[in-house]
């Protein structure tokens, strides 16, 4: 009656060996070691600062995007929300609003964008791919429509400097600290809360999640809200960093975010992935392109390399899954053969492999 169970079927090192996250982190370390030792000017504070300043929007948006993709949905409108929040900030500042008030207004606009996406996906039940392709065009259209071809470039220096500010003498930009706080929050949300377990359940089996009392619609809605707000935050950062508010800011950023999330080991079908892997994925792309640029490799070649890396990483998931499935099948067969010979056909179970 009182049977005890080990918590894990395999020791830690073996679980790590087959995990996608460990592979991405290992690759990141390899690339870092190579870049620090063989790429001149890479291991300098200035390069690091600019590397982080460049990838900060991707890092930020990748956090809510990870959770959304784990539920099996997607948000393609994030870059357009960046543009719209940038335009909101610029227009209000242009009309004499102070930067903090305008920034809060931009966040509210992001929240509203997320609410629209979330409502259509979670409560109306439309496919997120279609909804957010639509709102991608809609939000971008509004953003470009408001400002036209002109740009607002007149921001108080105090605020634009803040976006480029580094912490003490470390060379780490302030935005990275903001990101670190958000990363802790999203890690807790996905990996250490009941809500996060529900997120995985939705991605793995939405019907069972519903039967188990997971608030499916509410969870999805909340995730799109997060996505909207964080994208707006990225938009504020983007605007102040380049002191430029334009309707076409960050066009195409959504694909970079999704590419990094997938590279970090999140399954596009939902149910699998970890925040840590995604962070490593963003850093991997950032480090690789920064180091290659310093080596004098052209942008086109860098894009080709990153593209190949992504395809290879997605393929490796299938390959790993296939290998581990095959191993599990063999394991089960062996076990069935040894414990209960009657269940296996004669002549198969008795042969030792």
């Amino acid at each position: 009656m009182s049977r005890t169970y080990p918590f894990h079927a395999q020791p830690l090192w073996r679980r790590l060996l087959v995990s996608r996250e460990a592979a991405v982190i290992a690759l990141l370390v390899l690339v870092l070691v190579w870049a620090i030792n063989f790429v001149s000017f890479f291991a300098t504070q200035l390069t690091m600062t600019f590397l982080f300043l460049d990838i900060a929007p991707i890092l930020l948006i990748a956090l809510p995007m990870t959770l959304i993709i784990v539920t099996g949905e997607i948000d393609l409108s994030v870059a357009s929300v960046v543009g719209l929040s940038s335009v909101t900030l610029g227009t209000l500042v242009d009309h004499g609003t102070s930067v903090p008030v305008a920034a809060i207004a931009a966040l509210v606009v992001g929240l509203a964008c997320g609410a629209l996406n979330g409502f259509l996906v979670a409560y109306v039940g439309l496919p997120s791919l279609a909804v957010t392709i639509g709102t991608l065009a809609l939000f971008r259209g509004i953003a470009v429509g408001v400002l036209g071809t002109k740009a607002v470039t007149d921001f108080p220096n105090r605020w634009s400097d803040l976006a480029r500010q580094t912490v003490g003498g470390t060379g780490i930009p302030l935005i990275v600290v903001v990101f670190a706080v958000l990363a802790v929050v999203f890690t807790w949300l996905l990996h250490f809360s009941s809500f996060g377990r529900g997120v995985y359940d939705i991605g793995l089996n939405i019907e069972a999640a519903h039967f188990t009392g997971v608030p499916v619609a509410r969870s999805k809605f909340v995730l799109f809200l997060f996505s909207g707000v964080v994208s707006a935050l990225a938009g504020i950062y983007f605007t102040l960093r380049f002191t430029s508010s334009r309707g076409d800011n960050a066009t195409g950023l959504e694909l970079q975010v999704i590419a990094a999330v997938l590279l970090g080991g999140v399954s596009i079908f939902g149910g699998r992935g970890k925040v840590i892997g995604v962070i490593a994925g963003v850093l991997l792309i950032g480090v690789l392109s920064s180091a290659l640029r310093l080596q004098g490799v052209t942008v086109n070649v860098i894009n080709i390399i990153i593209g190949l890396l992504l395809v290879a990483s997605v393929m490796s998931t299938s390959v790993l899954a296939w290998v581990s499935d095959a191993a599990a099948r063999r394991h089960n067969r062996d076990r069935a053969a040894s414990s209960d010979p009657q269940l296996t056909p004669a002549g198969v179970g008795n042969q030792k492999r």
Partner: protein
Amino acid sequence: MTENPTRPASLELRGVVKSFGAVQALRSGSLRVEPGSIHALVGENGAGKSTLVKVVAGVYRRDGGEFLLDGSSVDFSSTAESKAAGVAVIYQEPTLFPDLSVTENIFMGRQILGSGRRINRSAMYAEAASLFAGLGVHIDPRRQALGLSIADQQIIEIAKAISLDARVLIMDEPTAALSGVEVERLFTVARRLRDEGRALVFISHRFDEVFELCDTVTVMRDGSYVDTLRVADTDVDKLVALMVGREVGDLFPKTPATVGGPVLEVRNLGSTGVFHDVSFDVRAGEIVSLAGLVGAGRSEIARAVFGVDGYDTGSVHLLGKAVPPRNPRAAIRAGMAFIPEDRRKQGLVIDASVSRNVAGVIRGRLSRFGVLTQRAENEASAPWASRLEVKTNALDMNATTMSGGNQQKVVIAKWLATEPRLLVIDEPTRGIDVGTKAEVHRLLSELAGQGMAILMISSELPEVLGMADRILVVSEGRLTADIDRDDATPENVMLAATRTREVRA
């Protein structure tokens, strides 16, 4: 039944065996259908009728036994092969291409070609029109399939079968969704086909239809052939006795429990087109079973009570408090647990680990200082896995790797962990091995003994009769009988479950 040795039967199955893993769906299925005859195939849910039909249709391949068509042995590995050999199956709900015309549906995949291999539409329309004329029905061959009634869709399927020159037509519960007039039209068509010398197999739960339409009847039970009779020589009582035909009294001994106050009170629950005016109580320590035929609305009632589906009228109370509709979370909070019928799709997150699944409902209260760890889930799920004797190597093994019986134990563990006052369990032992079955029955009995109220849905009559303190029989979305354990017999439950036409007429 006298067999005519000079003329081979259109369709003959002898001792056909088919099993799925450990579950033997068909032990010894036999059927002999003469040309020019309408042959009824009857039996309880799970008697093996559908499996037998699927073997004939080429959906499944038999494990053993003989299968003859017009006297020659055949073995189909696909539905295309069975069609080519002249077997057609018309299912309860036909699957047509809704956007194509009626004619295009009939000639799907074998369009009539004209010169230059172009599709010859006019020839197809003419052929479809003559098929309909032959069947004596009026359907425009050019209209879209979308919006056709189920009855008309079945006629299209029949027309398709005839255009393929099917010698054997099997109709699997064709009348379940038809109105009286439509049934009459279907019967007229069926008689016409019989007079042309084709062999028809008619599966139905409605005895009045069997007696009206068929000339011969074969009874199946527990995956085996029981008997074949001339319809003229038999009656309803005899058929029911043959279908049930076993002692069930002491198969599943339920230990008597002291029955307490009402836990679940359902009043006038109705959902348009699904179930109507359903009222019942389940008291503490009592196992109440919703019995009836598949499709009668039993699962739908349970789903509405738990709140995964909505309802239009009526109310649900648990321990005197109203349970809001369409809100499984509220139902869980109120003390309800629901073990659904399809455990792979609804009961489990099959790709998640054992501990994630077992802790799936209670995890909200496992977090310490707002942090929920894997360790906390492991520690909370281990005792429940142990209590149910779940067989797994470790708590982080995926549920995919487990047998059906073990998966069911995981689902039960998950819900027992919530310490519910009412357990709703839909098909507790479907597709699980005999040993685990007995364990589940013992467990249910034990839980009732501890004062839990249990609402059990089962298609297995012996399980219902063995386990239930009270049996509520559902037929076509209505409660047709409320039978106490002591008064319940297989016959009166089956009769209540098939009592439909008389009530409606």
